[in-house]
């Protein structure tokens, strides 16, 4: 009996050792995973650093005053989809109509709002319904019920149509637009006066190959805004917007400048981007039904250009700034992030064939694999890695250090990246004037890793779960409208 029990014990011990080894190996794998994610982050950051000087020179040593009043600049149609925006739409349209740009039109698309969005617009600008407006049906979209216009404001059109989602509204806008370039702008965002001309200048530097340009999106919470002008710049006072401000800075300055320099940009923010209309039409316009239409259009453009072996670039213009209201409450932020998670997963699944396919060059060999392995699947690797290491330490308490190392790697590398982004900001833009702002940034940059990051992971997973559930009822899937957003959720 004794022998037997000893044998069992030994066997148990062996099993435990085996389990421990497996856990450790997986845990180490997770550590390496995190380190490689960070190595990639830092390579992109290094590219951003290399390119920030060009950005700096372009924004400081060249003026756009001659361009801003010249016929030589291509005309642009600004497309502003609006769903239940009656409170803010007037101010936003007014602001959009005072851009420093020679030739452009503003097309507001009322996406079947249930409030008085259309009425406040027609009253304010004294618009009347055009009989027989000419819509070019280049792209399918929900039926347009009317186009409103007033010759007194020659550059403003308002389209009224049934609810069909943001993508659908943009398509309707494209059908009415008269100019070769289109720019999508969120109805809750505020463009700096020079944002569009800066972007157009970048476009003019290589008009044939440029198919899209993204702008820099910043958080307006906390800033003093007057007459469509950011008068006094300061950081948000509240916690949630503050975390987002750092996130945006990291993503736009640290990430997108680098990715765009190797033409591997996967997204142009829906809040502010410039596109060549002919190519957008060529890829069939925006895709409705799911969120993430801004990423989707860029992936489609990459695919189209690469499959047709056309030389192209998708650029990023960090000096063209768009200010947006960040969600201030937990609930709205969570729903925004879940939506992003859902859209992101959908885009990855739809386009998985591009990953690791040398035909798609940078897009296929770097951007897509990166986004699938290191972005979409990131939460799973991190969480399982953490569980494995916790299990391992539970079995052998003497190894607690390894947990600490795992935690530190996550925290320090992320923090380093934040600091890198702050330095980029300081080199090229210097928008934060106060030294207290710097302290605040540094503090929140660190605090982000104790709670906020974990929430981010959670939201992403929730988004994925939502996606999979919707997926079951694919056929019954209704168009994803902005309904979620109707609770004043402001998306970026």
């Amino acid at each position, binding site marked *: 009996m004794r022998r037997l029990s000893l044998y069992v014990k030994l066997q148990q011990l062996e099993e435990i050792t085996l389990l421990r080894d497996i856990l*450790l190996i997986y845990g*180490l794998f997770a*550590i*390496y995973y995190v*380190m490689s994610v960070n190595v990639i982050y830092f390579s992109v950051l290094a590219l951003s650093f290399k390119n920030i*000087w*060009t950005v*700096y*020179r*372009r924004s*400081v*040593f*060249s*003026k756009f*005053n*001659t*361009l801003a009043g*010249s*016929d*030589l600049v*291509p005309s642009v149609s600004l497309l502003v989809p609006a769903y239940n925006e009656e409170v803010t739409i007037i101010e936003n349209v007014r602001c959009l109509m005072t851009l420093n740009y020679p030739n452009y039109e503003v097309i507001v698309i009322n996406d079947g709002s249930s409030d008085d969005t259309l009425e406040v617009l027609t009253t304010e600008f004294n618009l*009347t*319904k*055009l*009989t*027989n407006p*000419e819509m*070019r*049906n*280049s792209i399918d979209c929900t039926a347009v019920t009317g186009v409103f216009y007033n*010759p007194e404001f020659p550059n403003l059109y308002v389209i009224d149509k049934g609810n069909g989602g943001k993508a659908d509204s943009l398509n309707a806008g494209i059908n009415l637009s*008269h100019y070769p370039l289109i720019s999508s702008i969120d109805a809750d965002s505020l463009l700096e006066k020079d944002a569009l001309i800066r972007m157009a*200048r*970048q476009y*003019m*530097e*290589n*008009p*044939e*190959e440029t198919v899209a340009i993204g702008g820099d999106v910043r958080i307006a919470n906390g800033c003093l805004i007057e007459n469509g002008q950011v008068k006094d710049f300061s950081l948000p006072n509240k916690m949630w917007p503050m975390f987002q401000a750092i996130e945006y800075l990291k993503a736009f300055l640290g990430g997108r400048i680098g990715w765009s320099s190797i033409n591997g940009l996967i997204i142009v923010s829906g809040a502010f981007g410039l596109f060549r209309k002919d190519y957008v*039409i060529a890829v069939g316009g925006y895709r409705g039904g799911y969120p993430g239409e801004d990423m989707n259009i860029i992936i489609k453009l990459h695919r189209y250009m690469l499959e047709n072996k056309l030389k192209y670039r998708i650029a990023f213009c960090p000096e063209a700034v768009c200010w947006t209201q960040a969600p201030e409450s937990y609930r709205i932020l969570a729903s925004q992030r879940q939506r992003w998670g859902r859209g992101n997963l959908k885009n990855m699944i739809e386009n998985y064939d591009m990953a690791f396919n040398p035909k798609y060059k940078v897009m296929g060999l770097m951007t897509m694999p990166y986004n699938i392995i290191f972005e979409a699947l990131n939460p799973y690797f991190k969480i399982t890695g953490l569980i494995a290491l916790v299990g391992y330490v539970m079995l052998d308490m003497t190894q607690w*250090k390894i947990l600490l*190392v795992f935690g*530190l*790697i996550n925290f*320090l*590398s992320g*923090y*380093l990246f934040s*600091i*890198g982004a*702050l*330095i980029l900001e*300081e*080199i090229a833009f*210097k928008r934060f*004037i106060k*030294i207290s702002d*710097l302290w605040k940034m*540094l503090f929140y940059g660190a605090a982000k890793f104790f709670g906020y990051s974990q929430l981010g992971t959670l939201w992403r997973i929730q988004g994925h779960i939502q996606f999979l559930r919707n997926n079951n009822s694919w056929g019954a899937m209704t168009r994803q409208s902005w309904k979620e957003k109707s609770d004043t959720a402001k998306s970026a």
Partner: protein
Amino acid sequence: MFSHVTVAIYFVYVCLGLIGLGIALLFYMKLKHLSTLKKTEYYQRKHQDYFKYLQTQLYEDQELPLPPGKLVPLEKRIIQDKLMEWIEQFKGEVRTRVIELCYKAGFVDDEMEKLDSLYFSRRVEASYRLGMMRATEATPRLLDMLRKQRYSPVTTIIGRAVSKTADQESQLMEMLGYMLKHGKSIHNLAADVLLETRLDSSKILLQLLDHENPDFVKVALVAMWGQAVPEVIPALNRLSVDADEQDVRAEAVKLYLSSNPVLRDDTIKQLMSDSNWEVRAAVAKSLGNMHAAGSIPLLRRAMQDENWWVRNNSAESLAQLGETGFELLCETAQRGSGLERETALFHIEKVMSEGSDHRALDQMVTFNKKRLIYDRYFGVIETSKPVRKVAAVGGDYSA
């Protein structure tokens, strides 16, 4: 196993070190920037009187006085910035006087020295500032920089500087050559850069039109929009017939037509059946302005064109061509089909909704005549009753 953890620990150390460095750098940059801002404000206040005085003296005959006292580099830069702002805003005698002041204060020499700097950013900055100060003697150096520069936003910065400083046409030509040699189609940007010159641009444009390099011709064509230069019309006429490149010819035709030339009927016919839609659209548009009633059948046919712009311009021209044209438009709206019908309807409604300015008698007469025709076709209008809306037929990918 432990070696793996060691790697991870090293990684942690490296991160820690870099974070420390980064934070130190950030504070250094921030503090430096703040102190520069403070000093700038101080110096701006200090020299406020001098600036005010200069502005009262800009028109007198005596030389403008130099800034008083010995200046630190930042002060110099602030004064220079102010002067450069004036140079950019003014034309004529006043500008020349400010430029002279820049020379006298030694700003031009300072920047010339910086052209030899080891730092690329400094050299670019110097070229930008030399351009602003219209420093003629810098042109050869700038051209040299431009020649060696690989294509980037800096190309435009230097190109602009050359255009501003150049005092010979040949330098501008050289500049254009360097900007365009990278094979990017930056004609609009190049035209904008070229028009910064102080030299007589119409003479240069004329030269460019005759150039063997089609890129130069394109730059000239886009630069000529809005510039009425009668001497170039013959060259345009030649280009609109002979040019090999599609877009060169289209641009030339558009420009040529914008000068309102007298066209022969067969020329019109030929142009209206051109393979390039831009040409057809331009001709359709100009036919309305020429009030050539003989072109109505051509416009009627063009309403069926596959391109939206051609259809649109034809309809617009028809609406301009008196009662006959308008009646034809109504007829098309009633009997025609598909796209041409839609275009016609749109323009009819446009004419009707615009109404007439009742202060001008002749306008009122024309409008009422059109209204009569409208009523005959669509019934009486009461406060812009909409014409039955027609659903679009098929897709149109032409615009």
